[in-house]
């Protein structure tokens, strides 16, 4: 098993690059909005995703992000389809 320090040694620049990419994209969105409020569910999802990323709960952030970006499952789907 690796150490946190070793993982950061190997990945810090990649993480930094991806975060700057996200920040630059959100800046681009704001410039395109030219001061108007943005009423887009995807922006709200991104904000929620960032909250998950910086959360300090259990190490399942990737799974929680996947769930955030997923359509919900309905266990009664077969009834709806008549199957």
């Amino acid at each position, binding site marked *: 098993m690796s150490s946190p320090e070793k993982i950061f040694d190997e990945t810090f620049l990649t993480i930094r690059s991806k975060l700057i990419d996200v920040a630059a994209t959100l800046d681009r969105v704001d410039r395109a909005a030219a001061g108007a409020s943005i009423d887009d569910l995807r922006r709200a999802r991104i904000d929620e995703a960032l909250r998950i990323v910086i959360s300090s709960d259990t190490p399942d952030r*990737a799974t929680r992000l996947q769930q955030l*970006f997923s*359509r*919900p*499952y309905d266990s009664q*789907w077969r009834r709806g389809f008549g*199957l």
Partner: protein
Amino acid sequence: MDYIDPHLHMVSRITDDYETLARMGCVAVSEPAFWAGFDRGTVDGFRDYFRQLTEVEPKRAAAFGIQHFCWLCINAKEAENVSLSREVIAMIPEFLDRPGVLGIGEIGLNKNTRNEAIVFLEHLELAITYDQPILIHTPHLEDKYQGTRMILDMLQDDSRLDRSRVLVDHVEEHTIGEVLDRGFWAGMTLYPITKCTPSRAADMIEKYGPERLMANSAGDWGPSKPTAVPDLIFELRRRGHDEALIRRVVYENPIEFFSNSHNFNFRPRSLGQVTV
């Protein structure tokens, strides 16, 4: 290290890719039937496609020392056309005894519609009737979790299915646990943007262990990397994992799963064997 790519759409790749795969250590590929990029109009279109999978691709692969195997079905995207799907399903048995045909796949769901579910169930019936293993496509992106749960529901509804002969592919962090916990095989697809990366696949191997787990590139006509499995091999080695673990995921597990098919006549490389 010799490896097998269990999910690679070589009909959409140029011959140079076979040479590259051979140089990277690929000794066999398994190619599920998939969407061609457009909706085919007739059953004869599928018949010709199945001929390409069973006659043309094995020859292209063999020129580079790679063994080619395939799966047959009408894919989930075209399954919305139920009448055409039924014609294709009725035609598939013409090909099931051809060399290299491993089973029914890649069946599944796309947008998780009623018609897709009906066609999925009829493919399951075909597989059971003809005693065939099954390779399953789970949907993309926001449809994946819902579709995977629906697929698992349909699989679990049928007690005739042998779960050790069913591969649920394109698993990710939020679906892999459900698939493995229920006794199915799971495939991780190393595909840019819309699926998994080698690093995340390595994380899942570390979390769940190598049992019933495979990795593939699902290289197709979209932006994809047919050499993604070697990327995973490299990542696992970089993390210090031993060769036995890596070989199990990328070579032994595909052999174990494909051996469920009586058409899997794989010949391992051996010392003294002449290869291209």
